[in-house]
């Protein structure tokens, strides 16, 4: 045991040293704006390329340049020889910022009363010092979607980085999608039932599809009139215009074959883009989804299969979807474990999803889903500097996350987990009584 303790302390010291070695001075707040020169890493760009021994210059929040041997005067230098750089990962559906401890009612303000709330914006209601944000970013998840729930139309979900000074600073796409809850789509659907998990089925009890369609018709009518300047602006209907102009997708919780078909049909009926949220049993309609180019946010691979399905139903589904040409992203559900979204990807890989597709599902596919592909999803010049420096594949728990860059700032290691770890690691060992 003593030898083990020594080994541990040694490894711990190395680990700490790695963590502390990189920045030249103690980081504070959200991290320095740089500029930075990161030297000598193997860069996995996320576009299919792996660039050996490549330097990256970060300035003004973005990747300015990438290449071998390049340099920048006055930049803070970070030596990354022998290390890897991956695009920052994305958890495509969480309540982070809106919800802190899910068991405490006052820390859980994710929904509003009323059925029709497209005007509600998650982006303005986020606690940016949420402990969940801190632990999430330190594990290399640099962006998350955070979404409201409840009613027939919950509101506007926001795609945010996991670090920022204000909500204006942290937003990547402040209005990334409008959450629409079709009655019965999120619940048990299709044969065998049981597909109800992971959805955001809010208070749709008592509300009907007819109510929703009536609202959609009125909103579409409003859109047409507003385009012709033939009506006054309305606070509630105005945000719906982005749906009909196809600027913003609808995010629709849907599980089971029937539920997903219902959601796809809803999109066709109203001429709007749809993202399926949940996607339990999406494999059953994968051709349809591919044909209509409807992407899926897979809500938690950590579920049990439906009762009469084989054990690997949830794990093997991404592989099947990929083969059919469906794009998807991962969500861990509650937000507290957003940092472990790469574990979901790892499970998918173990059960048949090619590694490069898994990486895309963690990075560029969610970016595309929410219309943010110009800003995040790959490590390329011009995009936001959202990436991680690691000792290996982030999906492999044996590799360490060394540094995290978000919007060009190196995130300081001051999250809750690190703080408590440092405190109790420093507790003096008990004195051995001879």
């Amino acid at each position: 045991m003593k030898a083990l303790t020594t080994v541990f302390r040694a490894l711990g010291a190395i680990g700490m040293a790695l963590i502390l070695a990189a920045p030249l001075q103690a980081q504070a707040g959200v991290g320095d704006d740089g500029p930075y020169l990161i030297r000598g890493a193997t860069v996995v760009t996320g576009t299919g390329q792996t660039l050996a021994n490549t330097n990256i210059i970060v300035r003004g929040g973005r990747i300015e340049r990438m290449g071998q041997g390049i340099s920048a005067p006055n930049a803070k230098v970070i030596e990354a020889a022998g290390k890897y750089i991956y695009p920052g990962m994305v958890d495509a559906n969480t309540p982070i910022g809106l919800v802190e401890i899910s068991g405490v009612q006052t820390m859980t303000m994710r929904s509003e009363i009323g059925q029709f709330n497209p005007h509600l914006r998650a982006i303005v209601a986020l606690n940016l010092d949420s402990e969940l944000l801190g632990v999430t970013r330190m594990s290399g998840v640099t962006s998350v979607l955070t979404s409201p729930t409840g009613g027939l139309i919950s509101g506007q979900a926001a795609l945010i980085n996991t670090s920022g000074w204000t909500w204006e600073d942290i937003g990547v796409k402040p209005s990334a999608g409008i959450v629409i809850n079709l009655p019965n789509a999120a619940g048990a659907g299709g044969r065998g039932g049981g597909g109800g998990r992971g959805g955001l089925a809010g208070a749709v009890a008592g509300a009907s599809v007819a109510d929703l369609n009536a609202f959609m018709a009125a909103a579409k009518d409003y859109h047409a009139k507003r385009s012709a300047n033939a009506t006054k602006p309305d606070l509630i209907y105005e945000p719906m215009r982005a749906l009909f102009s196809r600027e913003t997708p609808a995010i629709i919780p849907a599980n089971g074959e029937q539920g997903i078909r219902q959601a796809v049909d809803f999109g066709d009926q109203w001429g709007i883009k749809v993202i399926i949220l949940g996607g339990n049993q999406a494999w059953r309609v994968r051709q349809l989804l591919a044909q209509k180019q409807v992407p899926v946010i897979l809500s938690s691979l950590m579920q049990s299969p439906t009762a009469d399905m084989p054990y690997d139903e949830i794990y093997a589904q991404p592989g099947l979807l990929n083969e059919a040409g469906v794009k998807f992203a991962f969500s861990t559900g509650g937000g507290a474990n957003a940092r472990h979204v790469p574990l979901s990807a790892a499970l998918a890989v173990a059960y048949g999803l090619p590694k490069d597709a898994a990486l895309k599902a963690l990075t560029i596919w969610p970016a595309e889903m929410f219309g943010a592909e110009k800003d995040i999803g790959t490590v390329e010049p011009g995009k936001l500097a959202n990436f991680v420096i690691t000792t290996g594949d982030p999906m492999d728990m044996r590799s360490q996350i060394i540094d995290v860059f978000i919007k060009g700032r190196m995130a300081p290691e001051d999250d809750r987990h690190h703080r408590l770890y440092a405190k109790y690691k420093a507790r003096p060992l008990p004195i051995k009584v001879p």
Partner: protein
Amino acid sequence: MRLIQTILVGAAVAGLAAAVSAQDVAIRNATIITISNGDIENGTIVVRGGKIAAVGKNVSIPAGIRTIDGTGKFVMPGIIDAHSHAALENGINEGSESVTPEVQVQLKNDDPVIQRALAGGVTAALLLHGSANTIGGQARVIKMRWGQPAESMYFKGAYRIVKFALGENVTRAGGDISAGEERRYPTSRMGVEHTLRYWFTRAKEYDKEWQDYRAVAKTNPNAIPPRRDLRLEALTDILHGDLKVHAHSYRGDEILMLIRIADEMGFKINTFQHALEAYKVADEIAKHGASVSTFADNWAYKVEAWDAIPYNMALLTERGVVVSVNSDSDKRIRRLYQEAAIGVRYGNMPVNEALKMVTLNPAKQLGVDKMVGTLEVGKDGDIAVLSAHPFAPESAVEYTIVDGKVLFDRSEANTLRKAAAKTPGGN
């Protein structure tokens, strides 16, 4: 003399070359993670009659035994889940009263979750009473012997185990009451301590009554014994160390409280379950001699889980506490090998130490470490075979073997791909 020796040796060999049974299996040319003696590259392991007969680099496989080609694969001891409520029936919490150690959980042997656990490499588990009671009911240690009657699944030789619980679940239980009724005691952490002290004091009195009776009965056969009380009897078993305590707990202060009560009453806590803040009192836990079984990854769902950190496992291990990682979930039980890997990233646990958290360490906590938990000759043939290193992201379980029987075989298993091939995929 030589003739007799030859006959004896011949008889022994003949005994060894016994008929091939369903409990014989071999895996050749794999990377064998023994846990106890390092990893063996290109190794072979042979199981006969349900027990490990040989493990090493140059091991010959007796003729006729089912042999699995392990080239490129990894072999490890079957995974042990030290906290599960899967496959139970007729109640998980006897929550009408706060102290109920006389109750015993019941195994539902035909629950399909057992099949799914096997598909995740799990070969044994501790099935526990829930956490609504300060002292709950007695557990079942089982092997995942799918297809057997319930009694045949009990892990013979394992500890008898009882569940304690501290904190929010206990103090919140009994919240739904009708007007005029009293809430179930205790409703605060302070009350939890009193409940424990009260009941163990009564148990000591009960124990003494019976000891006094036994002394008297030696000379007076007509002496009337005290009333046999199953509840106090179970508590007495705890005092005598025959019934081991696994205590659901979160906060550092309540963990320390239970250690001190145990010290005061003269018994030991075997294992702290969940113990998300155990890292705060690691030295005290180590000194008492308790171990910890925790989840790698669950926090922020209630206030007492707020200070949970993924470094818990590494910190505890550094300070000398035996740590296992458990599932407490039908879903997590299927990928416990992934959970154990979390200790490597958070806290730099050496890989073999992290793997112990789902093999040897839970075996110790359940009292079955002489039988399972490592791959050594003489131990049970409980084995998981994976397609890559258990911590590699692409790793999936290929075979799960219990007592030498292959109970999960991925190549033969019903999978989504097979099921989906029958469904065109919709249009």
